[in-house]
């Protein structure tokens, strides 16, 4: 009695032998043998295979003959079945021609997604699905041509025999006759399958699931798997973990849809071939990974020319609820200091707060990005950080920011940044100022201080600035003395007003408790130490000097 390992290994051996016979015996014999294999009639499957090889006078190699003999012995069939098999190690294997069809030809994947959508969802570890026409006959009693091949790639958790059978049955019920070749990822591919895969048209597993779903079909353009067929062995790049994390259902499709909508860009006309791997990585960690900063939803930074960004920063920012940094500029206006993720700008618009840059050099180092200054809409960087590129017109319209030319912005920020030392000194007279003041008084002072700079701001920027001040005042009224944890999601980072740095008298950072600058290490640092209890973190980073040592 065969043990459990034989019960699992033997069908796999038979399946692999059938794969080796593909293109050499007729397709219906292969299909029948696979069906018998799947329904646990291994003896009939092997007998059918052996007899077909003899009747068709199909030569096999000596190794194949030995393997077939082992299989015949394993299923207790008559060894005489193998006696008359033609053995010829030098006999060339028949080479077949495959095509995905010309423009007027029926597509090899037509109707496949609808037919197999349901079964694909329930079968384990289906990695890929491809279709191709074979235009040459196979075997002695060969069927008509073109003959459709459906190539299925499975992962380690898949069971090829049952997958082949179930997929074939689904196709048959749909009136589609096809040979289903199930290949395990990482396994050796025969020349027959390699030739087929080279021109096969891949079907998106999400498309197959959507085709089955009763919900309205979502546009699959741009979300399909790349049509570039490749040998199965290359799919080893996808680890089992990734394969498990890639749900072949509408959820991932909707996730992609969210990327597209948040990026506010049309679905790309071309298949996202080059970017799908990156998109795959994105999909593997939808909760952790922000989409790349590009208009195209699935395009990574390399495709848009944007510098690579570190996703944890963006997601960290989003997790803490902090307003994100300024949205990226258009491609042509991008500076190396552009912060990532257009979706963060969407978050900014939703929160009605202007985006804020990570203010400290430490923050920038953690994200592998140079420190960036907030956009001109924000009330000027109080940190004196280098400027950030302005947002694109699209993102600007979403966030309420108006596009600004980088040179002008740089000049403006340069002007603003010059008083940074003055701001540091400006903090000096402030240090004795009580941090806690009446909200009304604080607001009046801020309004006065910002009055000079308002002339330089657009109406929208002024509105945003007003909203910011109101929000800050509101927060102070609710929690005036509470020390907020660095990772608290409740703490907004109030960007400093542009004019505050210009006017030392208006440097009221202590008042709001929002200390960000590492440059005010002198008197401001002592002032912060004085009011450490009121100091709050910026983007999760405690203010300079607030920690011992």
């Amino acid at each position, binding site marked *: 009695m065969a043990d459990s390992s034989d019960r699992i290994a033997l069908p796999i051996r038979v399946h692999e032998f059938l794969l080796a016979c593909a293109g050499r015996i007729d397709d*219906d014999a292969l299909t029948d043998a696979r069906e018998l294999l799947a329904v646990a009639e291994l003896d009939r499957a092997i007998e059918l295979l*052996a007899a077909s090889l003899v009747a068709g006078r199909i030569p096999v190699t000596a190794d194949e003959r030995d393997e077939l003999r082992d299989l015949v012995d394993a299923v207790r*069939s*008559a060894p005489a079945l193998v006696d008359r098999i033609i053995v010829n190690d030098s006999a060339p294997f028949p080479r077949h021609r495959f095509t995905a069809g010309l423009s007027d030809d029926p597509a090899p994947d037509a109707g496949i997604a609808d037919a197999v959508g349901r079964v694909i969802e329930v079968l384990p570890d289906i990695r890929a699905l491809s279709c191709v026409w074979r235009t040459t006959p196979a075997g002695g009693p060969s069927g*008509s041509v073109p003959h459709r091949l459906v190539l299925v790639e499975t992962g380690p958790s898949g069971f090829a025999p049952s997958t082949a059978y179930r997929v074939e049955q689904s196709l048959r019920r749909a009136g589609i006759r096809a040979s289903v070749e199930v290949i395990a990822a990482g396994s050796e591919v025969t020349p027959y399958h390699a030739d087929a895969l080279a021109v096969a048209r891949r079907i998106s597993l999400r498309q197959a699931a959507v085709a089955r779903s009763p919900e309205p079909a979502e546009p699959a353009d741009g979300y399909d798997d790349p049509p570039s067929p490749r040998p199965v062995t290359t799919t080893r790049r996808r680890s089992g973990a990734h394969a498990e994390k890639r749900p072949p259902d509408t959820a991932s499709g909707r996730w992609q849809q969210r990327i597209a909508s948040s990026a506010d860009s049309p679905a790309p006309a071309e298949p996202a071939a080059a970017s799908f791997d990156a998109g795959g990585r994105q999909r593997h960690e939808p909760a952790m990974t922000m989409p790349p900063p590009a208009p195209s939803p699935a395009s990574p930074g390399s495709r848009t020319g944007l510098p690579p960004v570190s996703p944890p920063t963006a997601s960290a920012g989003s997790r803490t609820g902090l307003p994100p940094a300024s949205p990226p500029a258009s491609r042509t206006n991008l500076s190396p200091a552009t912060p990532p993720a257009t979706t963060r700008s969407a978050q900014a618009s939703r929160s009605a707060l202007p985006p804020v840059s990570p203010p400290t050099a430490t923050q920038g180092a953690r994200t592998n990005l140079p420190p960036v200054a907030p956009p001109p809409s924000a009330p000027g960087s109080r940190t004196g950080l280098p400027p950030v590129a302005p947002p694109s017109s699209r993102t600007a319209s979403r966030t309420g920011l108006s596009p600004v030319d980088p040179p002008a912005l740089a000049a403006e920020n340069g002007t603003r940044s010059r008083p940074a030392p003055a701001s540091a000194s400006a903090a000096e007279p402030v240090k004795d100022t009580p941090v806690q003041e009446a909200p009304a008084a604080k607001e009046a002072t801020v309004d006065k201080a910002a009055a000079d700079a308002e002339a330089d701001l657009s109406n929208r920027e002024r509105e945003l600035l007003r909203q910011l001040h109101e929000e800050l005042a509101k927060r102070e009224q609710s929690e005036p003395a509470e020390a907020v944890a660095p990772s608290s999601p409740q703490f907004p980072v109030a960007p400093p007003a542009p004019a505050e740095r210009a006017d030392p008298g208006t440097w009221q950072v202590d008042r709001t408790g929002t200390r960000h600058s590492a440059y005010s290490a002198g008197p401001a640092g002592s002032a912060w130490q004085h009011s450490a209890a009121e100091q709050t973190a910026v983007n999760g980073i405690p203010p300079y000097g607030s920690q011992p040592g």
Partner: protein
Amino acid sequence: MGEAAESACHELLLRLAGRLPDRQLWRFRDWLASGALPELSHVLPLTLLRERVGLVDDEFRLVDTALRAHGADIGLLSSIRELDALPPLDHTFAEHDRDAPRASLGDPLAVLLTALLRGRPAVAEVRATWRRSTHGMVNRVLLVTAVADQPRLTGELQRVQRALGEADPCVEVLPVDWTPTPYHQAAFAASELLCTGAEDPYAQLVHS
């Protein structure tokens, strides 16, 4: 391989028409036509058992003549169910079927068969009918009468049909002096003549 064994096996496979699934029956006939009777002898008994197909006495004699000489498993043969009479037909036949695929501009199969078999030696008549199963499946059945070489003619005509797209061809090549089964009698009764070969049965009748 003896001619007697081959003839007995061909007759056995003729008698299994309508009882064994077409998908298996045509392949066994192809193996016989290709000279794989030893392999068929090993596969057929297990198939009859798994498909729960019984045999009448005459058929057991054919099994004994055709398969035992090539090493068929006696144990398996002994387990085949014995029937007192042939089972009733599960099919009906008609010269034309409303659900049959019909080419409005001609019958490609008929044209091809006529080109192949008209005036061919050893071929008497070539006829065709439509068979409908109890499940509603409609298949075209070719009925050919021949005086010799029936297994190879069967294999040839099956491969022609498969090349034309028929996945499970039904080709019944009957010896001219063979007593047809009820299945074949019903098929002949509802068939249309496609062409005649060199062995015109009516000509033989006239000149005999």
